[in-house]
């Protein structure tokens, strides 16, 4: 896997690079000394994994992840912020405390779950995004999201029992979603087709899709035709 090291301290990057020489499966694709630089490097190099410092001037590690469209696997490296990371709700991101113990690094690498194979190679579709809503953060695999609802310029992601808002419009999000999985049911809702449990007809030629969690989503007439095609219904 290809890694990018993001840390504002040169010696911290040197040290991590040296620790990683014992792990030939990790190739170091590059290094960034700031969040700004990392955003550009990630776009260019499309790494599989980020080693990410949290406290950096200009942009923190959290802010960097929020800026990313599609997020690779992440291991935080931090001197003291493990409490912030432990606050993660779902899909806890692994973290390494500095100075980094070689065994901990090995354990963290063994646990790395690379996102769906399509991503990492900067595929056209989102696989995983980082979501922060107030004090809570999630690393969300799109496959786990069953419904996305528009709220003005924001979108509400529904996965598990969580409903955080993200700062992206539904239209912008739709462009980056895999059309095989996600389906625009109406003006304000996108549903995950794998989460549909039942489809019923409704008055006026539309459909009502009942989702995993029991919610009924209206499918507009125009979109209903597409759904019928796809499902052969």
């Amino acid at each position, binding site marked *: 896997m290809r890694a990018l090291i993001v840390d*504002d*301290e*040169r*010696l*911290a990057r*040197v*040290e991590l690079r*040296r620790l990683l020489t014992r792990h030939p499966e990790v190739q170091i694709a590059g290094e960034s000394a*700031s969040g*700004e630089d990392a955003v550009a490097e990630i776009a260019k190099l499309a790494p599989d994994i980020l080693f990410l410092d949290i*406290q950096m*001037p*200009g942009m923190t590690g959290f802010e960097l992840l929020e800026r990313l469209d599609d997020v690779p696997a992440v291991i935080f490296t931090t*001197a*003291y912020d493990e409490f912030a990371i432990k606050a993660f709700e779902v899909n806890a991101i692994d973290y390494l*405390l*500095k*100075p*980094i113990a070689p065994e901990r690094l090995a354990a963290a690498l063994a646990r790395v779950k690379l996102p769906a194979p399509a991503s990492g190679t900067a595929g056209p579709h989102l696989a995983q995004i980082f979501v922060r809503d107030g004090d809570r953060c999630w690393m969300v695999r799109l496959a786990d999201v069953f419904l996305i609802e528009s709220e003005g310029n924001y979108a509400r992601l529904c996965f598990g029992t969580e409903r955080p808002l993200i700062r992206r419009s539904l239209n912008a999000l739709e462009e980056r979603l895999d059309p095989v999985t996600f389906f625009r049911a109406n003006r304000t809702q996108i549903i995950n087709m794998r989460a549909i449990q039942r489809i019923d007809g409704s008055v006026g030629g539309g459909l009502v899709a009942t989702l995993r969690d029991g919610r009924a989503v209206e499918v507009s007439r125009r979109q209903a035709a597409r759904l019928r095609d796809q499902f052969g219904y």
Partner: protein
Amino acid sequence: MTGESPDDAARRNRRARFYWPVQIGAWTAYSVIGFFAASSRYQGSRTDLAAGYACYAVYSIALTDSLRREIRRRGWRTMRPGKMWPRLLASVFAVSAVQTVLIVIVNLAFAGRQSPFVEDKIQIAFVFLGTSGAMAMWMIYYVMFTARWARDEQQAQLKLALREAQLRALEAQINPHFLFNGLNSIRGLVIENPARAQDMITRLSNILRHNLRHDVRHTVPLSSEIGAVTDYLALEGVRFDERLRVRFEVDPAAADVKVPSLLLQTLVENAVKHGIARLPAGGDVVIRASLLAHSVVVEVENSGGLTEAAPEATQVGLANTRERLRILYGGRATLSLAARGVGRVAATAIIPVTATT
């Protein structure tokens, strides 16, 4: 007392305003009553008698006031009852004896040797007993009134001691970001530059030792604080590389001046944490110290903005430092944080140059 807070001073003021009217009023009233009681039986001049009782009032006020001062000076009021009461009782008789002697002297002065009063030893014994009774009453009231004050005083002292312990713990605490990032950098240096890594370990040891020795009431020579800060900045220099630039402008005459321990380190730490660490391109920290006639001005100026650089944590840190200055110097030391031109912030402490213990 250096540890007196405005609260203590206010409490003392209230007590002083209460004490004098009562002290003077009670003894005057007692003497006036005594005068009228005695005047029916007294055959001599009324003026002499009045003068005698006026003297009695003045002596009583003066004597019990010195007694009060002595009780406070010796701290009898905060002793446990078994030790306090015998002392108070003995002092009542001692003061009464002095008063009796004074009355005899006054009598001799006014009425001369042939005064029937001085002749009559039983009279003198009665005066002694009567005075002892009055003094005992005074003592009982004194103990009653001071009971609450003594308790307040004890609580105030306890609170102060607790606060000092808290401040000490807070200040001596090494910033964990500094410690762990520093150790991580040293780990990296061990292979890249072993000699520098060794130097950094020594400097880190110096800082830890300096902080462990810290005491809120301690003052140390400015040169020793400068030494600790030099070590601190050298370590941060490893972390920040060329992003941290440091300049010292220290008046050599100020080297031996005593300053509160860790004061400079706290200011420098804030400058790095809230100034340099937030600037992607880094910045500089300037440490200045100059000696004035009666004070030393210690200043830490750094790149960075004030609004961004003054979150709650800094304000709490500054408030703690100010409180410590108050414990050490009363109101005579100041600490301020202010913007200095665009993109610069300075923390300035003005500390009186006096030997504090």
